Each structure stands twice: as structure tokens, then as C-alpha cells.
């Protein structure tokens, strides 16, 4: 692949370089309308001290820009992942997308309708089609409820079935679908291990026949061997039920395994989006490169990772211009002043970096 051609800020033609067989087998089909189109999404939180303190200590308001102008699309049947370090806003996006948090600005189009502007009643009509799996399977299941009731709750709330026997049948079916026993519906969550609890969470998410599931770090509380079981299950279910996933994780190996496309976040903004092979083999943004360098490598035992200096700055006081510039080896004066705009130089993806735009930074294989 010709480097200079790749770097020109024009959209490359449809031919994906397909670094490996099966690259983007579902996502790469052209002319598919996205399930989600997120435009200029912002969510700010007011974390100011109380009024009296502000007056006495002469401090102003403090606003955390948890998500600050994010654009991306999610296509039907794909797994779109968001990666980034803690505090970069990935979980906030997850909550915004399913409507657990209101937006400050921007639109979230779900099948053409802006659900960020929906009234409560309108939202209820789409809510059963969007579900979520949470990180901590110990905190996300009510310890006083039997598993059967936990899984039946969405069915009852959305009024999908009203016949008692039909609900019981459906719960059994769901439990077996995630590899548990139908008899488990009589038990309480504490009788299950972490991996089994996460299966219960998945069964509950599937109960309302959703098309779209947000998975917020679904395996980071689990051991690797259990993680493998859950990731395999999620892939199987995705094919069976034709699900679309928004997957949030800080574990790049897991993201590489599960995703079709990946978005990299840094301090409330997306710095790079791309098809996973493209992004992992030919990262463009310096932050993406840094993250990839920091993946522990099992096959290169004893090799020191290239530790990158610095940490994520506080979101209360983000750096000016490109938020990554204090840690970036390619930063110039322009990076300190001007927020880089997305350059759509890869299919269904972009990079926001002045160094790439100016041709100072070339993607390498």
C-alpha cells in the first residue's frame, strides 16, 4: 500500500486492504444504513463546589467535559468497540446511547430517529430494542430476587408476554441459550460464580429481544478462562440473534478479538476510528500507536514494553488544542492551539491529528 496515497485526506476507494482473511466480513458490505449515527455528541457534568464555597473561595464553576463532540456510526450486525484509558468518556457514551443519561448537545440517531430528543413516552417505545450488559456481575443483579424474576423483569415491564406459563417457558429458553440450566431460575444470584452471573446478565439483556446491546466492560471482572467462555458466548449469540454490539473495554486484546471496527477515545474525544485490522496493523494517531505499544506481549517474553511517559490529564482541566499534545512526541505549536478535525482517509473511519494531516506522520505496517 502506497503510504502517501493513504495519507491524503481523501476517502480511499472501497477496496479494503484486508490484512487477514475474513476482514470485516459483515461490516464491509457497502451501502448499509447505520443503526446508530451519533453526531457532535456532548455530555458535560457540573462538578462545581456548592454556591457558598464558590463565593467564599472565589472559585468559578467547574465543568467536566466527559464527552466533548463525538461523531461515529454503528452499522447493523457489527461490533463497534470504544477503547481508551479510564476517564476518557467511554462509559458515558455507553449510557448516553441507551438513554440512561441525557445529552448536553448533539444527536443520537437510532434508525433515523433522534432518540436524544425523545420524550419519555417515545423513549419507552424504543427502549426494549436497546439493552445493556454491565461490568460488575456482582452489583448488577438484585441479590434478593430469584434469577427467574431477574430475567423475566424486562418481559413483564415491556409487557412482551402476559401469560405466566409463557414467561416461565421464555425464561427457561433464555437460561439454556446462555449455557445455564432451566432449573437455575429458582436460585439466587449469590449461588453463582462471576462467569455464571454474567451469563444471567446476558440472558436478561436478551429477554426483550433487543437488536442492539451495549456491553460495558463485560469481562473485565472475570478470569481469563471465564472471559474466553463469555466472549465465545457473545459471538455465538450475535450470530444467532443478529445483534449489533457497542463494546466498551480497555483491554485491547479483547477488543481486537471481538470487534469489527474500533474507536479510540482520549479525554472525551474520538481520536481515531477504523476497521480493526486497519487500526491495529496501521495505527495512524500517535495515541493509538502508544496504546498498541503498551499491550503486553505473551510471545515476546521478557521484552520490555515501550513505556510512554505521562498519564491522562485531569478531565477538569484538559490541555488546549489537541488534548494529547503534552504526551505526544510529534506535537508542534499548532497542536497546542488548534483542535484537530477528523480526516476521513480510511473506509468507515477517520483520524484526528495535525501531524497526519500535514504528512509529518506516516502510517507504518
Amino acid at each position, binding site marked *: 500500500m502506497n503510504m502517501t496515497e493513504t495519507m491524503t485526506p481523501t476517502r480511499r476507494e472501497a477496496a479494503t486492504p484486508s490484512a*487477514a*482473511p*475474513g476482514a470485516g466480513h459483515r461490516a464491509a458490505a457497502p451501502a448499509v444504513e447505520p443503526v446508530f449515527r451519533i453526531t457532535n455528541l456532548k455530555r458535560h457534568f457540573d462538578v462545581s463546589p456548592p454556591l457558598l464555597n464558590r463565593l467564599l473561595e472565589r472559585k468559578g464553576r467547574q465543568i467536566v467535559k466527559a464527552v466533548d463532540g463525538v461523531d461515529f456510526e454503528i452499522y447493523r450486525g457489527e461490533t463497534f468497540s470504544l477503547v481508551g*484509558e*479510564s476517564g476518557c468518556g467511554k462509559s458515558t457514551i455507553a449510557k448516553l446511547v441507551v438513554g440512561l443519561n441525557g445529552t448536553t448537545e448533539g444527536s443520537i440517531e437510532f434508525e433515523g430517529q433522534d432518540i436524544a430528543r425523545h420524550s419519555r413516552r417515545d423513549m419507552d417505545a424504543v427502549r426494549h430494542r436497546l439493552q445493556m450488559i454491565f461490568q460488575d456481575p456482582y452489583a448488577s443483579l438484585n441479590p434478593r430476587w430469584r434469577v427467574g424474576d431477574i430475567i423475566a423483569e424486562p418481559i413483564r415491564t415491556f409487557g412482551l408476554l402476559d401469560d405466566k406459563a409463557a414467561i416461565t417457558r421464555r425464561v427457561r429458553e433464555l437460561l439454556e441459550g446462555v449455557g445455564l440450566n432451566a432449573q437455575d431460575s429458582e436460585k439466587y444470584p449469590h449461588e453463582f*460464580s*462471576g*462467569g*455464571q452471573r454474567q451469563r444471567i446478565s446476558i440472558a436478561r439483556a436478551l429477554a426483550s429481544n433487543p437488536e442492539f446491546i451495549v456491553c460495558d466492560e463485560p469481562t473485565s471482572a472475570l*478470569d*481469563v*478462562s*471465564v*472471559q*474466553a*467462555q463469555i*466472549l*465465545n458466548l457473545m*459471538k455465538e449469540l450475535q450470530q444467532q440473534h443478529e445483534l449489533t454490539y457497542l463494546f466498551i473495554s*480497555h*483491554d*485491547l*486484546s*479483547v477488543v*481486537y*478479538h471481538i470487534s469489527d471496527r474500533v474507536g479510540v477515545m482520549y479525554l472525551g474525544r474520538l481520536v481515531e476510528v477504523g476497521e480493526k485490522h486497519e487500526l*491495529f496493523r496501521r495505527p495512524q494517531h500517535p495515541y493509538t500507536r*502508544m*496504546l*498498541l505499544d*503498551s*499491550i*503486553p*506481549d*505473551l*510471545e515476546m*517474553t*521478557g*521484552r*520490555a*514494553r*515501550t*513505556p*510512554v*511517559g505521562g*498519564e*491522562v490529564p*485531569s478531565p477538569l482541566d484538559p490541555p488546549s488544542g489537541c488534548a494529547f499534545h503534552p504526551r505526544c512526541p510529534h506535537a508542534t505549536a499548532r497542536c497546542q492551539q488548534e483542535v484537530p478535525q477528523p480526516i476521513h482517509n480510511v473506509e468507515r473511519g477517520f483520524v484526528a491529528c495535525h501531524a497526519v494531516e500535514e504528512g509529518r506522520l506516516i502510517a507504518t505496517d
Partner: protein
Amino acid sequence: MTEHNNTSPVLDVADLHIEFDTRHGALKAIDGVSLQIAPGEILGVVGESGAGKSLTGTAITGLLERPGRISGGEIRLEGQRIDNLSQDEMRRLRGRRIGAIFQDPLTSLNPLYTVGRQLIETIRTHLPMSKAQARKRAIELLAEVGLPAPETRIDQYPHQFSGGMRQRVVIALALCADPKLVIADEPTTALDVSVQAQIITMLKRLCRDHGTAVMLVTHDMGVIAEAADRVAVMYAGRLVEVGPVAEVVKSAKHPYTQGLMNSIPTVLHDVDRLEQIEGSMPRLTAIPPGCAFNPRCPHAFSRCRAERPDLMAAGEGAAACWLVEEDAAPASAARATADTLVEHQD
């Protein structure tokens, strides 16, 4: 590291047993664990939650609480037996000769005291130093763990530090009396990957420089592969495999280690489906007879269900698996596969 092999080990755990007394009798949580760590060596201890990794660390630091108790075996630090010391003697040892680093850097620091006060207090508890000397040493330590501007940061409170910086302070605290042994229990689990790399690199350098032996307890094989010299794999309260890190990661001998390594997703190649070990680790109340892994093992044969294997030499390490013995036995063909072994046995 190989150059340390001739020196006597800093830590020598021999046939350690830990039991928990319950209403239904004693539960064996650790069942005959033996391990040694040489000066300057990093021993990685891995396993699933509940395998007993942290418990082993807790017993070594003398922080085991009732109803847990050491019911057998010996723990020796530089030749001196420490598992039978009194609480007071142990308290003097801890911090002085054994340092501890825990997972969550926020809970291991006191939020009400400045970082400096905590460091100075710890230094003065263990070393005969004046306040000024201790403060100087604290600043040196903070500089050594890579904290920028230690002269000013020393007077700040833990909440003014980020997670990675706090973990650096915790490491400085653990190292302040120049201990011979450091027990690091999931030191990087709460940190972001980019910071994790920084902390691991620093920990490695410090241990080389000071000749400190480290027991690195984690469930993250990536961290182990990068930091450890040798690896010990635990399953259901026992060691199933010990060996040099390259050997355990690349050519594991025990089927459990193999399964564990294969279940880790990688960015190096594409797989449609991860290999998974079916089932889950047994509860302490229901450990199967024979090899505890036999119900989940794809290679299990009749002997595995009846007789419990101990660690046997395999390659440069050791594994507790009957397959290893079968392979080593001169009579049976060295290349015998697991399948043919099953036929031989049945």
C-alpha cells in the same frame, strides 16, 4: 535469573497448608504449596480467583486472619522460620524485611495524612533515623519510583495523586526499609495499560538494583510474561506447574496451564473462537479426588481420577500431571499422545 541460582533463597515455603475452620469442618484452602524465590528474582504466581494465590501471599506476610490458619509446613525468610513468630515479632519484620504492595493504591494509603508523613513514619519505625534524615530518604525514594518533583509532592495528600502516581507512592512505602522480599498482590490491576507498563518496568528495575526478591501475584498473564523470571501456576489450592517464564508461556506442560494460555485473546492473529476450558474451578468443599483438574481436563485418564499427582520435573520446570510422568518413563514411548495413554491405562 540464572545467576541467582547458586545463592540460598530469600523466601523458602515448604509444604504450606492453610485451612479455614467452618461449621462443617476444616476447609483446605492451600494444600501443600512449596516455592522458593532467589535474591533479585521475580516469581509470578498466577491462577483464577479462588486458586489461593493471594492467600499464599497473605500467609507469608503474616496477615492471615481467623478463621484461616496455617495448619502445616514452614515459611523461611533468609533461612529464619517466620510462620511461628508472634504478632509483635511479625509486625517488626513486616515493612522491615518484607514489603507489601496491594491492588488498590487508594485504600493502601491513609487519606488523612500527607504522603511524606506516611513515608517518614514508616522509615522511622524501621530504621534509626532522625526526622530530617527520614525526609531526605523519603524524597530520594519518591524520585527513585519516578515521581516528578518529589520535593513538593511529598507534602501533598493521596487524593492529589493520580492512580499511577499513588501506586508509585505505595511502592516507595514498600521499599522504604530496603526489604529483602516484596509481596506484590495485583499491583497493576487497577491501572490503565499505559501506566501499567511504566509501573512494571520500574518494579523490575528496582528489584534488579536492590537484589530484592519479589512474589508477583496476578491473574494477568501479560504482566507475568513481561516481568517474571519464573512462574508458578496455582489451581484449587495447589501448585500445578512451576518453571521459567518462557517455558510456561510457550510450552506449558500442565493441561490447565495450556488451557489458560490458549484462552487469552491476542492481537497477533485472528481467531473466530477462543479456546475455552469447560466448566469452572471446583469449590473448596467439592474438590474431586485425584487431580483436582481432572473433570475439566481433555487428557484425563483413569489414574487422574484416583491418584493425586505431585510436582514432577518436566523440562526446565515441574508440573503436577500424570502425563508428565508417563512422558518421562523410559518404557512408554516418549512421544505417546494423551489418546494412546488413555488406552494403556483403561
